[in-house]
């Protein structure tokens, strides 16, 4: 364990900050349609929160938050949400990703708005899973498992 990981101040601040960073990431993803933000940015922020936790509390504890199998499932789920939205538009008689064709609400522009939100969520899930998996892939192996302070 390196010196920076032993610091009580850093451990406490990280433990307090991580939920807020994750909440901000969800806000950025959901706010993508009406302001600055979007799936790519929000996904990176969410990934950074988990990476920060894994940096301070150790790779083994980080993998408890986001296991390798969950990571793989999430990475493919996000892309599937995006592609399925596009295919659903074909199923309702439109072109690929022609959101207006889905007859969910009376106003086609409103349908488009909600489907764009769905697509952004898909992008966010894929980006956060890939970010975390990249960090775990290049991190050195950690032999001893150390419990997180809850």
């Amino acid at each position, binding site marked *: 364990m390196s010196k920076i990981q032993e610091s009580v101040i850093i451990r406490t601040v990280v433990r307090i900050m991580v939920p807020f960073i994750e909440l901000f990431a969800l806000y950025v993803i959901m706010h*993508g*349609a*009406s302001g*600055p933000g*979007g799936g790519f940015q929000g996904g990176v922020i969410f990934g950074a929160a988990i990476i920060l936790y894994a940096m301070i509390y150790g790779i083994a504890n980080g993998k408890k938050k986001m296991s390798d199998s969950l990571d793989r499932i999430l990475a493919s789920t996000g892309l599937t949400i995006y592609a399925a939205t596009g295919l659903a538009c074909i199923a309702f008689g439109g072109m690929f990703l022609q959101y207006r064709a889905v007859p969910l609400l009376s106003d086609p522009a409103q349908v488009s708005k909600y489907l764009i939100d769905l697509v952004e969520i898909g992008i966010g899930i894929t980006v956060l899973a*890939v970010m975390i998996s990249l960090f775990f892939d290049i991190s050195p192996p950690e032999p001893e498992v150390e419990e997180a302070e809850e």
Partner: protein
Amino acid sequence: MKTLALVVVLITGAMLIYAGHDLPAFGDINSTAYQAPMTQYFIEKSVPESGVPNIVTALLASYRGYDTLGETAVIFTAGMAVMLLLRRRET
């Protein structure tokens, strides 16, 4: 080596700052980008057509949705490739 890296970073930064002065001013209606015909189309039509107030998101996810799907697939493929190449097997 560190000095060389610092010199490279400083030169690149100076070039970027120099180039930044040629960008059009914020909100300049005489800039080339604003005068382009597609700009007017997107400003007028993006809200009624896509229902999204943010024009950037409307372009990214609606008008160029196919392109963004490709970008997401590229990120996914890159992540999977790194996973296959670098992941250590538990022995």
